[in-house]
């Protein structure tokens, strides 16, 4: 077991290094740096001035060295410009060239300065991640019970009418990406002119003009049922279908097993067989699927936060990419890569714990 976890961790660190290097390489391509130079310096810089700016700000030289500096594995750059002032990666307004640390990178907790938020990346990412955490939590609370319920109900009697109906629903929900269901839900439930809201308002069943709010901007300060339902439903809907289908597949497999038939023949009632014998075995596979849904939830979060203008992690990623904020984008990538790898690890280790038949090594 220990060897397994150690090997997994080693592979994980290798993957993390490779992934962050790819992101670093792609964000620090020459055209991106030129664009950064023109936005930070002036738009009408000459070619030579741009070259000069790139070197002066520590973006010159080999990409491997710069990656090492950013990661905190190599000493940060120190340069003396033409005016004679010493500038460097680790030299900020608060410390002098003498007191500045030699290493300052991601590992030391210095994630750089965001040109978009005008503050350190780590600070801005923290609060955005908290906002997205609430969204994810709500999505999980809706998605997991709903999908497991649908999967178990349709899988316990394969081919029945309930199964057909629920399976069709699952297929339809996997066929509806977030940007489609979001648009349809807003048009249906949150528009004052079409859909259900004008009808309900004219009957006097709802107080405001719409049933739900079509944007979630206000949910940053105060989460309410009114402004948070639609974004949560939009992300959850796409996931429900997939997890439900996995649960159904695993449930139908378990229901044909020998021990289920034995239990039935011994006279245990159908409900008791499902709850006591089948359910525990059927829920092993969906656990892995649910854990592996996290990286993909990240996609849903980006789309939904853009669509509903909820200023969380996904929205930040889009702004960072759109505004060529290299440090912020790198920070977002580190978080994304971290989430993906940790959930993979949890899913692997958890699977072994849940399924005692699997022996490691």
């Amino acid at each position, binding site marked *: 077991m220990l060897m397994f976890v150690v090997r997994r961790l080693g592979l994980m660190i290798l993957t993390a290094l490779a992934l962050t290097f790819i992101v670093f390489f792609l964000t620090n391509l020459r055209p991106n740096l030129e664009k950064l130079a023109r936005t930070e310096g002036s738009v009408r810089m000459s070619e030579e001035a741009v070259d000069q700016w790139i070197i002066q700000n520590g973006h010159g030289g080999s990409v491997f060295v710069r990656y090492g500096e950013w990661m905190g594995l190599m000493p940060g750059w120190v340069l003396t410009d033409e005016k004679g002032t010493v500038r460097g990666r680790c030299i900020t307004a608060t410390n002098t060239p003498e007191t500045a640390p030699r290493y300052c990178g991601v590992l030391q907790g210095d994630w750089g300065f965001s040109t978009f938020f005008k503050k350190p990346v780590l600070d801005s990412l923290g609060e955005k991640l908290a906002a997205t955490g609430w969204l994810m939590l709500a999505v999980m609370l809706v998605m997991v019970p709903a999908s497991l319920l649908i999967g178990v109900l349709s899988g316990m009697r394969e081919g029945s009418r309930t199964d057909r109906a629920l399976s069709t629903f699952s297929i339809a929900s*996997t066929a509806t990406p977030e940007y489609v269901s979001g648009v349809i839900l807003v048009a249906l439930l949150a528009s004052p002119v079409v859909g259900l809201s004008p009808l309900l308002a004219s009957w006097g069943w709802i107080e405001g003009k719409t049933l739900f709010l*079509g944007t979630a901007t206000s949910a940053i300060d105060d989460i309410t049922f009114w402004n948070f339902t639609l974004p949560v439903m939009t992300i959850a809907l796409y996931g429900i279908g997939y997890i439900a289908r996995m649960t159904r597949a695993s449930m139908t497999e378990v229901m044909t097993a020998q021990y289920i038939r034995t239990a039935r023949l011994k006279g245990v009632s159908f409900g008791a067989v499902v709850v006591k014998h089948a359910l525990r075995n059927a829920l092993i596979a969906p656990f892995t699927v649910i854990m592996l849904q996290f990286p993909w939830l990240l996609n849903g979060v980006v789309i939904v936060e853009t669509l509903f203008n909820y200023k969380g992690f996904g929205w930040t990623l889009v702004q960072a990419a759109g505004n060529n904020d290299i440090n912020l984008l790198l920070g977002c990538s580190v978080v994304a890569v971290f989430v993906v790898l940790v959930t993979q690890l949890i899913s692997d280790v958890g699977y072994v714990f849940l399924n005692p038949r699997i022996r490691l090594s």
Partner: protein
Amino acid sequence: MEDLLSWGQILGRMGSQFLPVWVALVVTYSLSITFKRRLGLYGKLFDSVVGMIGFGIVMFWVFTALLANMVITHDPLAQLSGLKNAVPGTLVPNPGDGIYPYYLLGGDHLARDVFSRMVMGARSVLSIAPAATAFAFMVGVTLGLPAGYFGGKFDTVLSFIANLVLAFPVILLFYLLVTPEIRVTGIPVYLAAVLFIFPILFFSILFNARYFTNPPRRNLYVGIVLVIGFWAYSGLAFNMDPLGVWSMEPNLLNVFVSVVFVNSPTVFRIVRGIVMDLKARDYVAAGQTRGEGPWYIMLWEILPNARGPLIVDFCLRIGYTTILLGTLGFFGLGVSPDSPDWGSTIDDGRKLLNLVPHPAVVPALALMSLVLGLNLLADGLREESLKD
């Protein structure tokens, strides 16, 4: 003429606009059902209701894409004054000769016809998604077969790379790979140069493995593959086709390559898994005993036996690719600003979603129905292929 059509009239007029599509569908269905016993797996599809519904929806969009010029009512880029955000069924003020008198599904924020843009969007989506999926399959199959069959270092390295690509959140990858700056560096061209070589490789090995005992035939087939392959390759990847037949716009190439790149690791993993399962079968051992080469066994013994799950996954993957293309359009990546593809029209329409929902809802429903059709088709195929 009335100023505003009722929903019944709108549906009726839309139905008659789609007339060529209906005719093509009826012909397809009557021919297929008549000869279904002679058509193999395709024919068996018509035994399953789910499969038939799915196939119907998919073919509806395929014919719409092919016959789009006959279906549209207006030029998808034309802006008619006074029809900005017009509601569905609005009368066109003073239509000239030969101009359709209504905006059947209303106008968008630039006063263009939503219906015609939706129809043209089908063409732009269906010209990329199946081709990109096919390329991803070529890459995945060509690498997955040897990885599963031989195992060892080759497999370890490829699996690590595949997991690396899969660990990226797709949207982050798109934001990094589909930008005008990336096009300047030429990375999409290098990626294309690597990814587009796989179909040529696949077909050359395929024919060589089968006909190497008969050199004249082998030379003919492999020669044809190489000539056509490299002709298309020079045009598609490097835009240097000497005859000017094959070419791809830089931003289209960028989108295409990224979508292939994202999809192929999953295909690789599926193929690898199936091969590892199938290589323990008796017919593989029989082939080995006969002295067949490994590539012959992989391509002509294992691959045909793996076709069931692969065809099903192909259908699902076209749907997934459609969703990915929509995502790209939704974030405005890699598409021209006035492109009628569904993702970007949804993005254009969402700004006024609360007040004028139809410009966004129409393409949203179109995209959803196409993906739903593909999923149902895959379900039907899975059901029928399991019956063998």
